[in-house]
């Protein structure tokens, strides 16, 4: 799989449509405290089917929907879309072989999340499996949250062993 682009709309502080083009090598994300860098990386885990709102620092999954500012009202929905190549990957059941994948997740207040792969409605599980087959996913050990290094050090040995699951 090659992940090429992430599109955010109404996701946390990214109220305006935002496109993040992801290219080869090392891409740095910089900016002052509180400007939205961690929000941006959380959008990737969100569209990959992150099921834990705590892992997104909220007290409910709806906390990822833009909640308004002093000058703007809250939104009702948030949507994140990931654009990828399926280079070298098996075709997911129900899809014709082809190169491009467009995976989206849209959450609406009091209605939960709706997932789509290439425009077709699917379940969260289908999206999670798609990424797992590509050696990635919301719980990939290669997605290191802010402060997670400290958690690995402080973890009980049985918790820490879960990091090996990615390698197996």
């Amino acid at each position, binding site marked *: *799989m*090659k*992940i090429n682009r992430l599109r955010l709309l109404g996701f*946390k*502080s990214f*109220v*305006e449509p*935002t496109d*993040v083009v*992801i*290219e*080869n*090598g*090392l*891409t*740095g*994300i*910089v*900016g*002052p405290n*509180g*400007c*939205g*860098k*961690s*929000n*941006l*990386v959380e959008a*990737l885990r969100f569209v990959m089917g992150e099921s834990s709102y705590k892992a997104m620092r909220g007290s409910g999954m709806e906390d990822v929907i833009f909640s*308004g*500012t*002093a*000058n*703007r009202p809250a939104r009702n929905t948030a949507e994140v879309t990931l654009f*990828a190549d399926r280079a070298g990957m098996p075709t997911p059941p129900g899809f014709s072989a082809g190169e491009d994948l467009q995976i989206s997740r849209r959450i609406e207040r009091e209605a939960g999340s709706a997932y789509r792969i290439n425009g077709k409605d699917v379940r969260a599980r289908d999206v999670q499996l798609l990424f797992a087959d*590509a*050696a*990635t996913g919301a719980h*990939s*050990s*290669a*997605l*290191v949250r*802010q402060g*997670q*290094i*400290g958690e*690995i*050090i402080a973890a*009980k*040995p*049985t918790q*820490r*062993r879960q*990091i*090996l*699951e*990615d*390698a*197996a």
Partner: protein
Amino acid sequence: GRERLLAAFEVVNGHFESLFTHLFGGGAAELMLTESDDPLEAGLEIMARPPGKKPQTMSLLSGGEQALTAMALIFAVFLTNPSPICVLDEVDAPLDDANVERFCALLEDMRSRTETRFIVVTHNPITMARMDRLFGVTMAERGVSQLVSVDLQTAERFREAV
């Protein structure tokens, strides 16, 4: 299930030992599966000895030494089964300048060994300078994030002045 985990553990441990020694410029470390005959209930212990020092429990190591050791573990798992994307959110925060340089050299090494695309969130100017490109996130309007492209030359000027 059990054989696969044990086989994976061996490969990860091999990578971990060499990554640790590489990052610390010496010393030694290893992983241990403990506490249970069933590896699916086992614990993962880390034994680490920075160069010139005696082996000690992880808790006695410094903040920066612990961060480097955890990084060696994360990349050991990564090398065993590289993912298409790797995102690191401020993992360089506890590192001194020399260790930030080693961390960046490690990322460049990973970039040359895999097809993986890396996203690195950082406040550190040394890290910024060693990226292939930079995106800036700003809040020109309070509470509203916007993405901008940052020219690596003007990165110094942009950096956190907003």
